[in-house]
């Protein structure tokens, strides 16, 4: 009896395994965010090597830290007779790639059976990654490598090209422009009260933590901060406190670190991934949309 059941289960698994190779609809594609909140690659059929997946994830993480853009890759064995453009667009909007406010998302999609490549851009990156650029990446970086059978290199080159196009100084300035507005639009009161509370606490704390003058051992000094390296979204900064004792006039310096900036969009997008309107549709990215931008082709 148990043996029979075992066989049935095995058969079911086999059937499931065979089916999983062809994705007839977007809902069947496993969303990488269901497993790992920091994932950017959906590679359910093992089209790409683990090393390549790690590289692509790294590139996307760096891009997200610096610009807030979500660059996602999907490599599938087959989508049957589905149209690759429609499929990639549907996937983009169902998962909600990119943030909800500015739609800063990019999807690089490949389906092996009919040699389809689609690059989809969200509404917020269309200007920086116009169709012509996507087309250049597709035909210049991906297709030649894919024709040689080196999918890993083609994907990596494409990811790097997207990364480079979106991290020039001008591109970053344009992409980051949106970040300052977001926390305000979310909930002005919540942010305000927390900030004012923190400021109050900080001033209180400052009094107690105020350093003693090394000369006269009394508390009470004025402090000026000098920033040596400003903090960025990627790294912490450094600065120096210049103290002047208000009792004896003694001056002394003390170095300090400035903590790394946390992009408000990534926190808000993560929040919306669990509580937002898109989560019900299985999307665990930021909730961004594409209006059909990008390029498509076959290798």
């Amino acid at each position, binding site marked *: 009896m148990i043996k029979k059941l075992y066989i049935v289960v095995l058969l079911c698994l086999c059937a499931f395994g065979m089916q999983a190779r062809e994705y007839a609809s977007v809902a069947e594609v496993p969303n990488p965010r269901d497993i790992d909140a920091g994932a950017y690659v959906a590679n359910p059929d093992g089209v790409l090597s683990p090393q390549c997946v790690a590289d692509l994830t790294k590139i996307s993480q760096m891009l997200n830290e610096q610009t807030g853009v979500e660059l996602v890759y999907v490599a599938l064995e087959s989508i049957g007779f589905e149209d690759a*453009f429609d499929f990639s*667009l549907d996937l983009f909007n169902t998962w909600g790639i990119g943030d909800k406010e500015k739609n800063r998302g990019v999807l690089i999609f490949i389906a092996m059976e009919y040699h389809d490549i689609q690059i989809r851009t969200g509404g917020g990156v269309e200007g920086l990654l*116009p*169709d*012509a650029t*996507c*087309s*250049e990446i597709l035909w210049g970086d991906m297709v030649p490598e894919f024709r040689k059978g080196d999918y890993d290199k083609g994907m990596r080159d494409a990811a790097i090209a997207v990364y480079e196009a979106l991290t020039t100084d001008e591109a970053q300035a344009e992409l980051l422009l949106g970040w300052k507005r977001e926390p305000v639009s979310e909930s002005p009161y919540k942010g305000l009260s927390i900030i004012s509370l923190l400021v109050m606490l900080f001033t209180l704390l400052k009094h107690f933590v105020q350093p003693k003058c090394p000369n006269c051992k009394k508390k009470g000094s004025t402090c000026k901060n000098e920033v040596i390296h400003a903090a960025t979204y990627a790294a912490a900064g450094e600065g120096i406190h210049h103290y002047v004792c208000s009792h004896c006039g003694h001056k002394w310096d003390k170095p300090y670190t400035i903590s790394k900036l946390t992009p408000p969009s990534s926190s808000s997008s993560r929040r919306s991934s669990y509580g937002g309107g898109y989560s019900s549709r299985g999307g665990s990215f930021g909730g961004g949309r594409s*209006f*059909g*931008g*990008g*390029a*498509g082709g076959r290798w």
Partner: protein
Amino acid sequence: MIIAAVAAIAFWALGKYNAMVTAEENVETAWGQVENQYQRRADLIPNLVSIVKQFAKHETEVYEKTMEARAKATQITIDPANATPEQLMAFQQAQGELSQALGRLMAVAESYPEIKSNENFLQLQSQLEGTENRIAVARNAFNEEAKTFNILIRKFPNNIVANMFGFQKKPYFEADENAKKAPDVRSIFED
């Protein structure tokens, strides 16, 4: 009692009216996107024509037809709030003729290797493809918004409110005639 009932109905009607206004606004926004994308395509055409012209000087008829179709297509504008199905059909037909003219233009370009390897042409071609994609997406989005609106105003008892305030059913984009028709294989082998 009667006053309370009338007030309740008035409140309900007010809510429905507002919902219809919002839905109609969405239809208009979606239409704006459709028009934007068609305009974008129209803006690309003069550049495309001038590049192809540089290399293929003798295909004057194709250029004239394309520019003519472009002029005709850009003349038709529609107010989505009061558009009739016939008006939308006329709009779609004019754009469809432009698509056909563009198809011929691209076919000419295809037969000249110098054009096909021209950097500017390749850029314009990818932009044109992208724009065609966006047109399709925008048209679908418009149809969806129009459907939402139509369902809202035609359901009972909403239709009473809709009639009172003169909300009208919105037309849809039909699938393109050419795309629907299977090609006539026989005609290819005749003559």
